[in-house]
């Protein structure tokens, strides 16, 4: 009886999550504007065809992928050595530095949007995916360090010492031993950096007023006097695909990434 109640509850949660989405997915397969040859409100792939014919929308998808990949690589690249330092050593100011990272992780992007806009406009980093990739580091580097540190700390110290005795240098130890040993941790870190960067819109908007627009801003630009709502929902569905795929890949490690100190 007890497990039946649990299943019903889980089904209710699933419905709560999926039903609002289902409506959006359904709309994306329907022509929402009067067009010759297609009945309005009937099943159609017209929205997806329109995306594949639109250079602007395809460029936006590409921009999103460029900035998000760049951001994940950057965060892993600087996050891994930093996480190693936090996990293995204590040093002057380590607590203060950890606190600073925590502060920047929780600072809402709208609070930083004006300062960043002013600074990036002055040094010519606006309207490019590189600018967005850099800016998103402000909340993703702390996340990367936080998750990776937990995974590194769960590897016994002897593991490092053996490698160093075998004559490995620090970079060679990182790539040949540490990265394979915490591979699930790298995956979980990449996942969280990916989603937090992918969904962020406030900084992405203020930095791409005239060009370099990611998917989210391209969708914003679709709203107008006579919005093609089907096209909007089709772009939204496409924007979900990479994230859902990543969730699927890390599903068994998802919960492990957070068993960590604060």
């Amino acid at each position, binding site marked *: 009886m007890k497990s039946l109640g649990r299943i019903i509850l889980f089904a209710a949660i699933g419905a709560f999550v999926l039903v609002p989405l289902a409506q959006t997915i359904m709309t994306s397969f329907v022509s929402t504007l009067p067009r010759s040859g297609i009945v309005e409100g009937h099943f159609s792939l017209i929205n997806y065809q329109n995306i594949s014919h639109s250079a602007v929308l395809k460029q936006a998808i590409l921009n999103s992928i460029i900035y998000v990949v760049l951001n994940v690589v950057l965060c892993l690249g600087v996050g891994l050595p930093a996480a190693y*330092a936090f996990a293995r050593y204590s*040093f002057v100011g380590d607590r203060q530095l950890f606190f600073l990272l925590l502060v920047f992780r929780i600072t809402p992007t709208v609070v930083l949007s004006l300062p*960043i806009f002013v600074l990036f406009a002055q040094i010519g980093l606006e309207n490019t995916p590189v600018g967005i990739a850099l800016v998103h580091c402000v909340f993703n580097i702390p996340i990367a360090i936080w998750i990776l540190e937990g995974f590194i700390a769960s590897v016994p110290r002897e593991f490092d010492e053996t490698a160093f005795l075998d004559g490995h240098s620090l970079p060679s130890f990182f790539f040949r031993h540490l990265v394979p040993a915490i591979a699930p941790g790298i995956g979980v870190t990449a996942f969280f950096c990916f*989603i937090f960067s992918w*969904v962020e819109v406030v900084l992405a908007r203020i930095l791409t007023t005239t060009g370099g627009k990611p*998917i989210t801003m391209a969708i914003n630009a679709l709203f107008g006097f006579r919005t093609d709502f089907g096209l909007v929902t089709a772009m939204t569905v496409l924007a979900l695909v990479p994230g*859902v795929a990543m969730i699927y890949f890390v599903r068994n490690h998802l*919960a492990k990434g957070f*068993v960590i*100190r604060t």
Partner: protein
Amino acid sequence: MKPYDNSAWFLVLPALVIVTFVGILPLVAVTNYSFQDLFSLNNPYWVGIDWYRNIVTSERFYASLGRSFLFSAIVLSIQLPLGIWIALLLQRSHRFIVSTVLVLITVPLVVPWNMIPVIWLNFINPNMGLAGRMLAWLGVGFDYKFNALHTWIVLVVMDTWHWLGLVVVLAYAGISSIPPAYYQAAAIDAASPWQVFRFIQLPKMKTVLSMALLLRFMDSFMIYIEAFRINAGGPDSATAFLSLDLGEEIQAFNYGPSAARSIVYFLIVLTIAWSFKAATSMRAPVTMAPAK
């Protein structure tokens, strides 16, 4: 104990350089602007603390602050207990169910933030939306545009839809780090389920739960794009939260006032982070052992 070695700074340096560049430097620049009247960025006129005085003496600021606190309080009192409860049920479930529920519940986390209100407005639309038509059919006079209570309900439900997954993932991570020996010991002592929760599970989940609390508090306290798109702070400013005031001023390119407001809000964040740290390290002076 970890060895003391200051050359570890070389390892954290690259991360620190980037965070300085995209976090600290902009804040320093904007502090400068907050003391000036900038018709354009090339024409600064020193006004001292005028912008700050305007903010802290305006009734609107305190009203928004109050609304933001209320929203956070409601959101936390729903999402935290619900998330913990789901995590507890998951812990006793089959592996396959666990990963299915975790995958499902984290899907809203990957929806771009500007699309979340679009999805929900679509969903509650009285003519086309599934929920909207359902409510109309039930005879509920649901009007999120002009009824403040209904706008609040939409925002709270939408926020729960969006973020419940994060709380569940964090809570489940905490629970699954508990070694089975703890439960065996509890069984030998004939502990009730409540005692197991109160004295084993809750203490073990403390670290991740405090993180969930902090993240959820901060994000709901400064909710911006989602709230703005639903009703732009309305009806009659009933959902005008702190961030909406700031967003309004940035949109209007009032450099000075919005710079001052950014600094005030950052100080609020700093205070919250600091008191959070003080509260958690008082009770747990040493870091917990890593999970195996």
